């Protein structure tokens, strides 16, 4: 059946699917016990992050981009959708649009739910990305939930960060002056055939002009895309190549490795706090706050001991 990616047989695909399901649901302790998942940016394959507000067209654009790039390498794509804070359930719909694309069979597309994560990513995203790399993909694309201000987290997880904007979101650009503008390597104005697209581009240009130059020296690129025009998707793809070539010419691997290590520890700690708190009795919260914190920290440490190396 049509199911192989590159040289990988269908059984490999099945194994990867199950491994990612297990990782996406693994508790902190299960992660600590699992071996061979230490993120190492030095060995990692290029990662491209796609972020931006809901409705910007991230899924369609990401799918088109990944299909195009899959002509010359094995592409894996992780797409994150929000979980319901009430039931914990989710409708993972990013791939509906992607599945309509010609050539989508060449990709490995995997949907993830944001679950308890509050940063536009998903629990265990560090481990999930490493699992994708270990599976042999030559590039991994990561599409975030797209909730706006919280996606600085994705910055630490990817090499090339693409921010997708659409006409009519001028206020959004205003709101982002403080945060996202400094972080995106490439700005995409999607649906560029709609009125207002040139205005957004010039607004971004003027924000970039008044912002002090980035410390790493990269000058953010602006690309106008529209889905009816494949040449615009190709232009975005070439811009990503240009950024990746620029990264390879730099010597900041240790800096990025440190950022990813910090993010990984931080997200495991956050969840360990959540998990430990879910086990305390109700009366616990009647203690003075300092005692609550001290006892919670003791519980957290005691819970870890049997499993630490």
């Amino acid at each position, binding site marked *: *059946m049509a199911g192989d990616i590159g040289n990988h047989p269908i059984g490999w695909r099945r194994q990867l699917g199950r491994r990612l399901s297990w990782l996406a649901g693994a*508790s902190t302790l299960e992660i600590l016990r699992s071996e061979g998942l230490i993120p190492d940016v030095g060995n990692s394959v290029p990662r491209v992050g796609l972020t931006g507000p809901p409705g910007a067209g991230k899924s369609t654009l990401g799918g088109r981009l990944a299909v195009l790039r899959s002509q010359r390498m094995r592409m894996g794509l992780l797409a994150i959708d929000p979980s319901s804070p009430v039931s914990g359930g989710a*409708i993972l719909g990013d791939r509906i649009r992607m599945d309509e694309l010609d050539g989508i069979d060449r990709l490995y597309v995997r949907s993830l739910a944001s679950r308890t994560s509050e940063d536009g990513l998903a629990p265990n995203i560090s481990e999930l990305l490493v699992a994708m790399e270990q599976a042999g993909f030559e590039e991994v694309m990561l599409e975030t939930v797209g909730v706006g201000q919280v996606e600085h987290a994705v910055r630490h997880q990817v090499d090339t960060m693409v921010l997708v904007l659409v006409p009519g979101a001028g206020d959004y650009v205003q709101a982002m002056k403080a945060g996202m503008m400094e972080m995106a390597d490439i700005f995409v104005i999607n649906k560029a055939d709609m009125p207002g697209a040139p205005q957004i581009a010039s607004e971004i240009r003027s924000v970039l002009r008044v912002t002090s130059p980035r410390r790493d020296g990269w000058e953010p690129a602006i690309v106008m895309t529209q889905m009816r025009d494949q040449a615009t998707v190709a232009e975005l793809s070439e811009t990503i190549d240009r950024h990746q070539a620029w990264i390879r010419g730099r010597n900041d691997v240790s800096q990025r490795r440190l950022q990813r290590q910090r993010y990984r520890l931080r997200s495991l700690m956050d969840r360990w706090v959540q998990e430990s708190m879910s086990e305390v009795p109700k009366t616990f919260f009647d203690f003075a706050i300092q005692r609550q914190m001290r006892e919670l920290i003791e519980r957290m440490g005691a819970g870890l001991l049997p499993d630490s190396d």
Partner: protein
Amino acid sequence: MVITANETKAPSTDYPLRGLRILVAKPGLDGHDIGAKVIALAMRDAGAEVIYTGLRKSAQHIARVAIDEGVDAVGLSILSGSHCELVAQVIDCLARAQAPDVKVFVGGTIPVPDHEPLRQLGVRGIYTSDMSLDRVIRDLAQQLH
């Protein structure tokens, strides 16, 4: 609310499908997916992570998405009358994709005489429009946990 990974694996009475990943798929040619969407939302509200394929998907495509997404179950919504052929195709594709353990459920207009043949093919549950959502969810939870 705090949802821990441990909790997501244990059945809960409020959210009986929590921790499960389910693919809702429409094979064949009928273009009506209100039922599929209603079921998908009900499963989400019961705590499941639901992937929906959209309309008119081939059995091969459905099996591929099921294995890539690492799902526990596939729910096939079929209103065209071709349920026996389509279900057999999907189950065959899942087996060839080395995923015979993915459980298959069917919903739609399925006449009673066809229920037994479908079960013979390996279908775990058959849900028709006269059943309440609550009952469908409870049955799914029982079959999947």
